[in-house]
């Protein structure tokens, strides 16, 4: 069995979740604090979009945006020397785009459930908005944020369609676990496919349980 997909998938999912986590939270915070209800709803709709597109189609669009011949892809290549499409960064990109809506949406719901008086209390105590966010809003929305994190991580780990499109299925470079599973299945090697599926399941299970455990420990204050 080839172990490179495991490594690639782990690297991809980890890199993606770090990015998604913070960007998703930032978007959520931004949208929650919007004044205009209408703008808010529109932004919400836009941020949820990637979820509704079939991943392969999303992959197509990504390819049209980040392909080496397209302006943005070219820009990255010329100025940063980073080739996005068909490289490891493309697997990360695909995972991020496809998992962002979950992170964003869960974080938003969680933020909305936090008692606003706590934020006001922080303000009158002179805490900066930054530290109010990290020390009050974030910890008190943790359950929901973590839900989003778990969803986003799992989605990133399982991302297949967009990845296959924009990153390709290049063994040892961009072949993630889901792609490896696909390859095995396509070749009729169900035995090999099951092995990879098992690894995928165990991996996600470990991470999800780990994340649950961390929150459990962290949220001592909630337990009576």
């Amino acid at each position, binding site marked *: 069995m080839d172990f490179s997909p495991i490594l690639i998938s782990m*690297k991809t999912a980890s890199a993606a979740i770090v990015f998604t986590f913070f960007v998703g939270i930032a978007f959520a915070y931004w949208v929650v604090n919007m004044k205009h209800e209408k703008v808010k709803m529109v932004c919400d709709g836009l941020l949820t979009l990637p979820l509704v597109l079939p991943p392969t189609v999303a992959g197509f669009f990504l390819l049209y945006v980040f392909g080496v011949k397209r302006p943005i892809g070219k820009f990255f290549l010329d100025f940063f020397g980073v080739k996005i499409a068909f490289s490891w960064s493309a697997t990360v990109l695909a995972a991020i785009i496809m998992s962002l809506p979950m992170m964003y949406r869960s974080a938003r719901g969680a933020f909305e459930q936090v008692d606003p008086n706590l934020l006001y209390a922080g303000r009158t105590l002179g805490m900066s908005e930054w530290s109010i966010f990290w020390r009050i809003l974030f910890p008190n929305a943790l359950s929901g944020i973590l839900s989003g994190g778990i969803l986003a991580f799992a989605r990133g780990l399982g991302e297949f369609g967009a990845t296959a499109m924009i990153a390709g299925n290049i063994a040892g470079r961009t072949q993630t676990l889901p792609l490896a599973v696909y390859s095995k299945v396509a070749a009729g090697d169900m035995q090999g496919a099951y092995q990879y599926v098992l690894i995928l399941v165990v991996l996600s299970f470990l991470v999800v349980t780990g994340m649950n455990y961390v929150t459990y420990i962290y949220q001592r204050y909630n337990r009576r």
Partner: protein
Amino acid sequence: GAKKDDSKADDTKATKTEETTESAKEEEPVTLMVAAAASLQYSYEDKLIPMFEKENPNITVTGTYDSSGKLQTQIEEGIEADVFMSAATKQMNTLVDESLVDKDTVVDLLENKIVLITAADSTLDLKEFTDITKAQTVALGDPESVPVGQYSKEALTNLGLWDEVSAKASLGTNVTEVLNQVAEGSADAGIVYATDAATTDKVKVIAEAPADSLAEPAIYPVGVVTASKNKEAAQKFVDFLGTGEAIAVFEDYGFIQNK
């Protein structure tokens, strides 16, 4: 950290490649990327690539396997493939027209047969290809995107069965789907390549498509990608695929040499 390493590795690879072409030193290591239809993956990975690498110790071959249509798009968008092998001529022709594949390197290497299959334990009494009309549901490849689908449609159209069959057909987005749907009995029958049918014993082949039903047989063309930086090595690989020992391997996997 990981990202940086990766791009660095890419850089060094690129510079090395340039050196190779300049000095044409046989000893310089070269990495080739082959983009091939998914149905070729196992013949490549298990036999052909090891054989080729043994003969040419300085060349390493990696593969990316997916549906031909997707690979076509990816080559259009600049994937760094050196060799492209498609499961149908349509994709190859398009790329040649767009001058993304060198026209004179293209070889129509293999031929594949399309066959009517049912589940191994099917009780349906199907005898020949035209019996497909007896099945209640049929799994086909999507003619728009899956090569085997194009051939299925062509064959059925020529047999005058397309309208009847398409009304009860599920158009799979890839061959695996078709195969599994038939194997699991979701579809009573389906049309796939003979090579696909050979990958599993859960389906049985009823009949090949009648010889006259296809204007052109299902061809697997191979060619060198124009943007390749290792054309020499790429050509070497294409040539290797045409050798007798390679063809023998292909035939083990159910392909037929195109003459």
